[in-house]
Structures are given as structure tokens and as C-alpha cells.
């Protein structure tokens, strides 16, 4: 694994911790690509034929595919390995955090002493049930557990965890989606110069921080319901010397004024919220957007137009990786949801961008300025990584 960009809250792993994290990362990638790469063949060569023989037709939806696939020994082995690999990621990091404490919490507190940005906590904000109901993606303690006043442990666990998960492919700052999006918007809409930007569900701020670089004149705000990750995000941003304003706030009910942001965005937040919450968040996004402003949500691909096997593959996490809302989200018609929230159909837009770290600059630019910005392919499915987003301009 390549090194992660150092900052004052990043824990330096010991010799053996680093060796373990690197291995777990490689093991997960192997399971995903080498073993997972055989699933389609298993489906086509034996699971589908025996389903057809029994029922006289092919499976018609992802649920039928799932029931059939999960009875197949190869898919069971792959699933069992994926589940263990995910658990091992967190296990490979936890000891380093325990070792770094309580010093880590003190460091976070002192980084917050003379901030360029700010952090506003509101103890009245509760962690909603859709977040607290289970430890999402098997992360022990979830986003919000606090063991001490000023605890940032869960932020540290997430920061290192997603890095190991992605094997460092998200770049040294783990910001590939946000940086790709910011750069894409800048090229595609050169006249769009947001003065105020808002990120919903920022966690430790991985994907909002690049907006500080790409739009240096903008005031950047980010909200989350979970305090430990907010504290960590604050310290991390300050350590990088990047002004960012963090707020403990629920996207369903924000205390920002009407029409106060030019750009409202999120990165992979929606698939961890309930349908009702998503509806409420969309209404709030519209309320806080200035006329002519842009709302954009980077997310998982839609399964509606996928073949049932791909949909099964995408939604596996929903059933076996503690992502309870994944499947509900991937099957939601976002365009319809945006129209329901009051956006005009003609102002709907999509983003499909190659990963900024994976392609040469001219390829990235051509994709951003080209006409084919349709969110069709996606990292886990396509040969090359593409990030997808769904958005709408507010009329005015």
C-alpha cells in the first residue's frame, strides 16, 4: 500500500500493523477481483441453467438471482471471504487507535485551538435510527460512538479503514470522488463559481476538502450527525491548513437560511439513509439552494436498468455487509425523486467522470467537456473506474 498523506491525526502504524493492513487490503482486492470475477461465469454456466430447468424461465429479478446464487458453493465461499475480509480491515486498525489514545483526542483538541475554519456542535441533534440501527459496513462502533469527552476514535477508524479498503486507490488523501467531481464541475461549467458550498454527511471530510482547492474563493461548509467524525474532520482540515466549517446537523432539518448556498452536495451519504430521510434531505437541499444553484449527489449506480445478475452483485452489501439501505437506494428513481422535491425535470443533470487519479489529464478533460455525461457505468462494474452523480439546477 502506498502511504496515506500524513496529517496530525493520522496514526503511524507499527512495523507489523502496517504489514497487516497491507496484507488485508491485498486479500480483500484478491477476493473481490479474482474470486468475485468468477461469479458471472458461475451464474451463466450452472446457476442460471439449473434455475431454468426447474422453473422453465430465467430469473427475472435480483432477488431470484440472489436466492439461487447464495445456494451455490462458489458464491458461498466468495461471500464468506468478503465478509471476513471486511471484518479484518477494522481489526487491523483498532489496536493502533487504542495505542494512540488518549493522546489522539488531545491532539484533536489542540488542533481546534486556533482554527482557520470552525466547528459548531449542537447537542440537540440526535443520531437518526437509520444510522444507529446497525454498525454500518461492519465498522465496530459505527460513526458516532464516544468513549470519552472529545473522542475522535471513530474518525480515526474510518479514515484509515477506507484507505485500507480501497488499497490506497482513492489517492493519498482518499478524495478521488470529491476531487474528480470538483474538477469535473469546474471544466464542464466554467461560469459556475460557487461562493458557498455545502456537503451533507461529510464524515471525516475526505471528499469535500478538494473543493477548498478547486474553488479557493468559496466558503466551504460540511455537516454530519456524528460528533467523533466531525471532530476528526475538523482537526484533519486544520492540520492540512484548509478552512472548513463543520456543523453537527441533520440534513433532514438544517438550520441554514433559505437560499444560502450555490452548491449543495453529498458523496455516498444517501445509500446510508432511509427513503423518508432522503425525501426530507432533498427538500432541505432545495430550500437552502440559491436560485441558479446546483445540487449534486455522488452515489452508487441505479439497478433499475441493470441485468438482474449485476443488480444482485451491486446489492450484495445490502444483505451481507450491514448496508441496510443500499438496496432501497439503488432501486430509487432519482429523477422522479428530484421532481417530487420541486426541481424542474429540464434542470435534471447527471455526472459520469473517470477517476481523476486513474486517467491522463486530457482524457479527464475530454470526459468533462464531452456530451456523454450519463451516469451509466460504475467503478465496481466497469473495466475502468467511473464515478457517478445525479443532480439538478435550481431554476432562477
Amino acid at each position, binding site marked *: 500500500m502506498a502511504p496515506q498523506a500524513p496529517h496530525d491525526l493520522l496514526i503511524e502504524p507499527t*512495523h507489523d500493523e502496517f504489514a497487516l493492513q497491507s496484507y488485508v487490503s491485498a486479500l480483500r482486492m484478491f477476493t473481490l477481483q*479474482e474470486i468475485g470475477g468468477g461469479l458471472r461465469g458461475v451464474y451463466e454456466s450452472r446457476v442460471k441453467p439449473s434455475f431454468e430447468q426447474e422453473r422453465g424461465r430465467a430469473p427475472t429479478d435480483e432477488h431470484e438471482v440472489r436466492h439461487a446464487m447464495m445456494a451455490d458453493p462458489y458464491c*458461498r465461499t466468495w461471500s464468506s471471504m468478503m*465478509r471476513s475480509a471486511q471484518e479484518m480491515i477494522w481489526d487491523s486498525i483498532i489496536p493502533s487507535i487504542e495505542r494512540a489514545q*488518549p493522546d489522539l483526542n488531545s491532539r484533536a483538541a489542540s488542533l481546534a485551538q486556533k482554527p482557520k475554519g470552525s466547528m459548531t456542535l449542537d447537542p440537540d441533534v440526535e443520531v437518526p435510527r437509520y444510522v444507529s440501527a446497525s454498525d454500518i459496513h461492519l465498522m465496530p462502533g459505527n460513526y458516532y460512538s464516544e468513549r470519552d469527552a472529545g473522542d475522535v476514535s471513530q474518525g480515526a477508524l474510518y479514515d484509515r479503514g477506507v484507505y485500507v479498503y480501497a488499497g490506497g486507490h482513492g489517492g493519498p488523501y482518499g478524495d478521488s470522488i470529491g476531487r474528480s467531481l470538483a474538477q469535473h464541475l469546474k471544466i464542464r461549467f466554467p461560469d459556475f463559481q460557487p461562493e458557498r458550498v455545502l456537503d451533507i454527511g461529510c464524515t471525516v471530510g475526505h471528499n469535500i476538502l478538494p473543493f477548498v482547492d478547486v474553488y479557493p474563493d468559496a466558503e466551504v461548509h460540511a455537516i454530519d450527525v456524528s460528533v467523533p467524525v466531525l471532530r476528526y474532520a475538523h482537526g484533519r482540515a486544520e492540520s492540512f491548513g484548509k478552512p472548513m466549517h463543520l456543523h453537527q446537523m441533520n440534513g433532514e432539518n438544517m438550520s441554514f437560511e433559505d437560499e444560502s448556498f450555490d452548491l449543495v452536495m453529498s458523496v455516498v451519504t444517501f445509500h446510508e439513509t432511509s427513503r423518508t430521510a432522503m425525501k426530507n434531505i432533498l427538500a432541505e437541499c432545495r430550500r437552502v439552494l440559491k436560485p441558479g444553484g446546483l445540487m449534486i449527489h455522488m452515489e452508487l449506480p441505479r439497478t433499475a436498468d441493470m441485468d438482474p445478475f449485476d443488480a444482485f452483485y451491486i446489492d450484495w452489501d445490502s444483505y451481507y455487509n450491514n448496508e441496510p439501505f443500499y438496496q432501497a437506494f439503488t432501486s430509487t428513481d432519482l429523477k422522479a425523486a428530484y421532481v417530487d422535491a420541486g426541481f424542474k425535470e429540464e434542470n435534471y443533470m447527471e455526472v459520469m467522470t473517470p477517476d481523476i487519479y486513474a486517467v491522463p489529464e486530457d482524457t479527464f478533460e475530454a470526459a468533462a467537456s464531452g456530451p456523454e455525461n450519463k451516469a451509466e457505468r460504475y467503478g465496481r462494474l466497469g473495466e475502468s473506474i467511473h464515478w457517478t452523480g445525479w443532480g439538478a439546477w435550481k431554476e432562477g
Partner: protein
Amino acid sequence: MSDEIKITPVNRGKRPAFFDDPAIDQLMAIVMAMSAEMSVLYDRVDTIERLLDKKGTLSRDDIEAFRPDQGVEDERNGRRNDYISRLFRIIREERETLVAHDKMDEYNALMDELAKS
């Protein structure tokens, strides 16, 4: 120490059993964890060898302080991937025979014929 922070390494939510006998899931988890321990050990041995090559002597502190540069890490990663590939050969093999399953049909047909004759 009373101000120690402990993170319980379990997550809330029922763990699915993928095999009919949950002991197989447990065994899989144990094998995966064991494979990791072996890889860590190999990296440690590799560190020791590199330090000895360079200095002819070593201390525990030298080992702890050693960090692979990108070249060493790439080399180690190549070794890790070969190792994983050998370890999970039985599963890789299944994938490969699937790709060649037309050939397997031919082979099985041949075997059937031979059995009859």
C-alpha cells in the same frame, strides 16, 4: 489505566452464515486470519534480511523503525499476491475450469465413452 480507550472489535448486526454449517464460515474466517499472520511474519523476516544485508547486525528498534519504501512495498505486494494466489488455488481453479467448461464437457464425454468400452 482508567483513561484507556477500548474499541470492542465486534459489530452490531447478526452475522450471516453462508454455509449450511456455520462452522465452515468460522473456519474460513480462521484461515483468512491465519494467512494474514503468516504474511506479517514474512514481512518481518524480509525486514530482518534487508537490515542484515545492509548493516550485518540489527536490533529490535531497527526492525520496528524499518518502513518499506515504495520499491520494497511493491516487491512485498507482488509476493503477497503470489502467496494469496497459491493459498486460494482451489477456488481459483474452480473459476478457471468454469471458463473452460466446454472443454470439461468434452472431457467428461470422453470419460463416459471410455467407461463404456
